[in-house]
């Protein structure tokens, strides 16, 4: 049968059909590295592979190219192209630093197919959990009437010193005793404790400020489409899309409801993000206190005048 196409050198199509329209522009290589890559000269060097589409040689037969197939899960793409999997750039498993979440629920509002759900709980502000001598220590804000107060339970705290959260299989015991602040009078505060519903009078310096803070976010991974809008909506740095893309499967839909424990990003892993966030909050708090102080001074001046 008739041969419709001429044969020629390697890019014979470009040469044989250069009829003034097709393929006038030969692919022109700009930099040497690309030329070498495209022509495959460096493929024999097993250390020079960059992309998944590369072919690889081997030490035994350097001239025989093997295809570079990544044998997941024994090999992973992160090893080859790590720049693809930076957390925050890659839309992976949703991870939240619950410690710094302010429950503004912007992420819930932006989620296209509402798969985010949150519930709040009484907690001690993380700023107060810092040591006094640390950078942002004790900036958690002071007690307010109608607000909540927390009394640290020393023995539980001591037990938590030795508790290993990674290996522990039981939920931690409550570390604080929460109650509503009825009235504040100088050094003391009247608190109605939630557990016993009795009112006692405590010294303010023993008390920490309690907040109604977000603790549990249920995320229906079965509905999540990993669009990353929640990550962008979060105006603090608490909401991440981590770079984990496996372990997101389950046998039932309930398996795909990720609660806080499965979406938690440990502070130790995201330390700098958390520090950033804490610095942000500390700045706000300092500004607030400075304003209050100057207001007070202004009031004092007015009193003098």
């Amino acid at each position, binding site marked *: 049968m008739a041969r419709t196409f001429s044969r020629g050198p390697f890019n014979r199509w470009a040469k044989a059909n250069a009829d*003034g*329209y097709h393929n*006038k522009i030969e692919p022109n290589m700009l930099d040497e590295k690309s030329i070498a890559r495209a022509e495959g000269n460096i493929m024999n060097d097993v250390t020079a592979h960059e992309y998944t589409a590369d072919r690889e040689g081997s030490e035994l037969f350097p001239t025989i190219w093997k295809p570079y197939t990544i044998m997941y899960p024994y090999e992973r793409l992160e090893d080859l192209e790590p720049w693809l999997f930076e957390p925050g750039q890659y839309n992976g498993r949703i991870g939240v630093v619950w410690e710094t979440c302010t429950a503004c629920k912007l992420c819930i509002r932006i989620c296209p197919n*509402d*798969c985010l*759900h949150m519930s709040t709980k009484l907690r001690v502000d993380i700023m107060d959990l810092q040591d006094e001598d640390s950078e942002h220590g004790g900036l958690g804000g002071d007690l307010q009437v109608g607000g909540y107060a927390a009394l640290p339970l020393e023995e539980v705290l001591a037990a938590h010193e030795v508790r290993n959260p990674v290996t522990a299989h039981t939920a931690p015991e409550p570390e604080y005793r929460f109650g509503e602040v009825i009235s504040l009078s100088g050094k003391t505060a009247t608190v109605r404790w939630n557990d016993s519903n009795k009112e006692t009078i405590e010294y303010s310096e023993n008390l920490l400020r309690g907040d109604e803070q977000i603790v549990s976010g*249920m995320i*229906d991974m079965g*509905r999540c489409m990993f669009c990353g809008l929640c990550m962008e909506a979060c105006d603090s740095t608490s909401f991440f899309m981590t770079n984990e893309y496996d372990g997101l499967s389950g046998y*039932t*839909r*309930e398996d795909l*409801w990720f609660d806080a424990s499965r979406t938690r990003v440990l502070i130790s892993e995201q330390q700098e993000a958390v520090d950033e966030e804490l610095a942000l909050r500390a700045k706000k708090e300092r500004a607030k206190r400075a304003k209050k102080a100057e207001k007070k001074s202004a009031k004092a001046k007015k009193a003098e005048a």
Partner: protein
Amino acid sequence: MSDKATGASWMVSADQNESAAKAAVSAINSHFSKAGVVASVLKHSSGSKRSYVSIECPPEHWLALAKWLRFDNGVNHCSMITGIHHPDGGADKGWEVVAHLMRMPVKNQEPGVAHVMRGGELEGNDIPMEYEVGIILPPSTTPTVPSVQSVWVGADWNEKETWDLVGINFEGHKDMVRVLNPHDSPVGFHPLQKQHRLRYDGFNEMYDDAQGFGRKPIDADKVK
């Protein structure tokens, strides 16, 4: 961007586009002004801000206008025909049919020749142009417009889809069938009408009914 061989620009320039739109509008107005057809030049409000022809057409003249556009004005491509339901649009606007047409300088080619058009060199009816035809229908349970299936073959399945989803009848359309909805959908069920809410609207997937058993679309028994 211009052709390396001839130096002519590949792109249709804004002036060509503007003049072609003006010409098309004046032609339409001169032909159909008595029939109540109002054509005007509008501009895309972003990007390269090109002009397009926007036409307001009463439904009874739609077929005549379509034939004239197709056979006298070279509008050879029916891009999209869609319908909109305006339940609270007032006394005279219950439904709306929007047709997007395009004029393409496309000719049948003899074999072995590539017809390379350079946009900068096109003139007259060869200049590509976008048409947007809006047809306002009064409120009714059976909104009806004439079908242009006979004018553009491409309008066939567009009208099928519009009837299937919005429920606008195209009279004169042959073998009108459901294309996207199941064939056994209840008669008169057209999901894009506004009385149909989204399925599971206000339904808390996560806590009320996990596996989705026992869910009923809240518009199960609602038809037009």
